[in-house]
C-alpha cells in the first residue's frame, strides 16, 4: 500500500458567485520513501494539492488516504494531531519562531506537539541539528541566520518528530539558485538517512529536475507524471 493514495481528488473554492476549480479529478499514488515534486505554472493548483495532502485543507470530492488514514473529514483538532504525528512542513518563508533559538525551534514540536522526555528530546534535537549541519548555530536566533541556514533549521524541525512525510511548498522560492540546490540536496540526503518521504512544489525547472517523480499540474489537472532515475 502506498503512503498517499488519491482518487478523483478535487477542490473547488467559492469566490463570491464564481466557483474556482483549483483541482479537478486528480488521482495518484506516492510510495513511502520517494522524492516527489509537483510542478506547474502559477495558479495551477500546487499549493492546493499539497495543502490537502498535508491535512490543512479538506477535498471537495474524491478520496484521500495518507498513511492508511482517511483524511477527508478530520475535525480541526484531529487534523492537528494527525499532522503532528505524521507530517513535517517546510515553508517558503522558513517560518521559524522568532523568539526561540535554533535549538528551541527544532525542539518546539517535541514539546508542544509531541510529548518527549527531556533527555530523549535533547539527543534527538542535537542529532537533527548535526544532520542538517546547524549544530554550531544552535544558540542563535532565526534573525541571525541566512535564508539557506533558516531553511536547514526548518528541515530539521520538520524531521525531528520522525515524520513519515515532509511537505515543502516552494521551499526554494526565497533562495538564490546555489543555495536552493544545496537545500534540495540536503532534503535528498535526509531522505536517505531517515527514509522519509519528501514532496515539494516548485516552478523552477532546475530544482524540479532533482526529484525522482515529477507531477506536472496544468489548470488543476495532472497532465504528466515523469519518473527520473536518481
Amino acid at each position, binding site marked *: 500500500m502506498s503512503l498517499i493514495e488519491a482518487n478523483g481528488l478535487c477542490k473547488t473554492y467559492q469566490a463570491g458567485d464564481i466557483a474556482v476549480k483549483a483541482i479537478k479529478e486528480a488521482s495518484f499514488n506516492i510510495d513511502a520513501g520517494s522524492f516527489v515534486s509537483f510542478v506547474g505554472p502559477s495558479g495551477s493548483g500546487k499549493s492546493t494539492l499539497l*495543502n490537502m495532502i498535508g491535512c490543512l485543507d479538506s477535498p471537495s470530492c474524491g478520496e484521500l488516504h495518507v498513511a492508511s488514514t482517511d483524511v477527508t473529514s478530520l475535525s480541526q483538532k484531529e487534523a492537528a494531531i494527525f499532522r503532528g504525528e505524521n507530517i513535517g*512542513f517546510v515553508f517558503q518563508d522558513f*517560518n521559524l519562531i522568532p*523568539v526561540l533559538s535554533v535549538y528551541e525551534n527544532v525542539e518546539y514540536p517535541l514539546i508542544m506537539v509531541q510529548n518527549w522526555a527531556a533527555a530523549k528530546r535533547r539527543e534527538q534535537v542535537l542529532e537533527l541539528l548535526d544532520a542538517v549541519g546547524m549544530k554550531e548555530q544552535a544558540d542563535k536566533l532565526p534573525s541571525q541566520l541566512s535564508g539557506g541556514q533558516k531553511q536547514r533549521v526548518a528541515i530539521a524541525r520538520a524531521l525531528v518528530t520522525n515524520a513519515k512525510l515532509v511537505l515543502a511548498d516552494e521551499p526554494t522560492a526565497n533562495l538564490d539558485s546555489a543555495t536552493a540546490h544545496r537545500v534540495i540536496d540536503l532534503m535528498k540526503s535526509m531522505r536517505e538517512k531517515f527514509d522519509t518521504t519528501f514532496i515539494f512544489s516548485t516552478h523552477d525547472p532546475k530544482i524540479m529536475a532533482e526529484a525522482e517523480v515529477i507531477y506536472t499540474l496544468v489548470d488543476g489537472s495532472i497532465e504528466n507524471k515523469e519518473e527520473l532515475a536518481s
Partner: protein
Amino acid sequence: MMNILKIASKNLMRYRRRTILTTMLITIGIVAVLLFISLSGSFRALMVGQITDSMLGHIQIHKKGYVASIESLPLTLNMKPAMVEKVTDYLSERDDIEAWTTRIKFGAMFSNFKETTSIRFNSIDPEMEIATSPLLPGRLIQGDREAAFVEPGKIVIPELIAKGLKVKVGDSIVIVATNREGSVNGNTFVIRGVLEGISGPGGRDGYMHVDDARNLLRMEDNEISEIAIRLKSSKNLSKIHKEMSTYFGQFINKAGKPAFDVHTWEKLSPFSNIAKMIDMLDLFIKVMLVAIVLISIMNVMLMAVYERINEIGTIAAIGTIPSRILSLFVTEGLLLGILGAFIGSVISFIVVYIMNVKTISFSFGRQENLVLQPTLDMNEVLMISMVVILVAVLASLQPAWKASRMDPIEALRHF
C-alpha cells in the same frame, strides 16, 4: 506547562515596550486602588473613632421612643432606676464591654446675667464618662484637659455658647431648668472648660456633674436618659448589638410594647452615611480597576494575536492543537496580570510604609492635626491581586480563542 510559560514569557519579552506599558498601567491601577482604599479606610477609622470615642460610644440604650424625640430631650422618657438596674446588671455580666456611662440629658437656660440662651446638657459621672469616651477631654479648647472633666459646681459648655455670650473659663453663670413636674429651678455654676463642637447628635452639648443635675431637676430617683457603651473591640459591634437587642427585647412595658431601644452609633450619627459613601467609592474604584485591566489586557492580547497570525499559522500547521494555542496566549495574559499585580502590591506596601513614617496630618472642619495611619490589609491586597489576575485571564480568553480557531492556510498566507 513549564514550556508554555517559557514561550509565553519569551513572547512578552519580544514586545518589551508593550509589555512594560501594559504592566505599568495595571501597576498604577493597583497602586491607586490600594492607596485609595488604605487612605479612605484610615480616614473612615479615624472619623468613626472620633465619633464613637469622644461622644456616642459604640452602642446606646434608651427607653423606647427616646431617640425618636431626642431633639426635645424629654425628661418624661428617662429610664427609671429599675430599668437602669436591668441594663447595668446585664452589662457587668459581659466581658466584651470596656466601659459604660449613664447620662441625664436635659435642656436648660443659660444666663451670663445680661443675656440668656438655651443649652443642652449631658450630666455624667466623670470617671464613667471618660472611660467610655476617652477622647472627650481632647475636645476641650479651653480649660485643663488633665483635670477631672466636671465636678459639682463646675461645668463644661460648648464653644458656640462661650462665643455667643462672651464667657470664658472661670466665669460664673446661671443655669435655669424646668423639671418633669414643671417646676423651675436655678443654680450658679463656674465654667471650667469650653468644648469644641463636632457633628452629630450631642456634638454641641455641655457637660455637668450628675449630682448637680439631680439637684437642679429635683430628681429623687436615679433616673437616666441614656446609657452609652464602649466595646473592647468595635469589630464585634453588629454581633453584640444583635445579642443585646434580643436580650432587651424581652422586656415589655405596661402597654405590651418593648421597653428598651438598643442602637449602634451608626444608627445615631449622620457620619455613618459618609462611611457608607466611602465604602461605595471603594467599590467604584475597584470596578474602575477591573475595567482598566480588562481593556488593557484585551487590547494588548488582540494586538499580539494580530501581529503573530503568520506564526500562529505555522505552529498550527505543524500540529499544535487548538487548546494548546489557546493556553499559550492565555498564559501571556496571565503573566501580564501576575506581573502587574505583584509590582503594584509591592509598590503599594512601600508607599503606605513611607506614609506612616512621614506622618500625614490634615484638618477636618475645626479638627486639626488629625493623623492618618494608613494600613494595607493583606487579605484585601491578595483579594485585589487575585481579581486582577482573574480578569487578565478572562480578558485574554477572547483573543486567545481567536488565535486557536484560525485556519492555518489563511494564517500562513497572512503577512
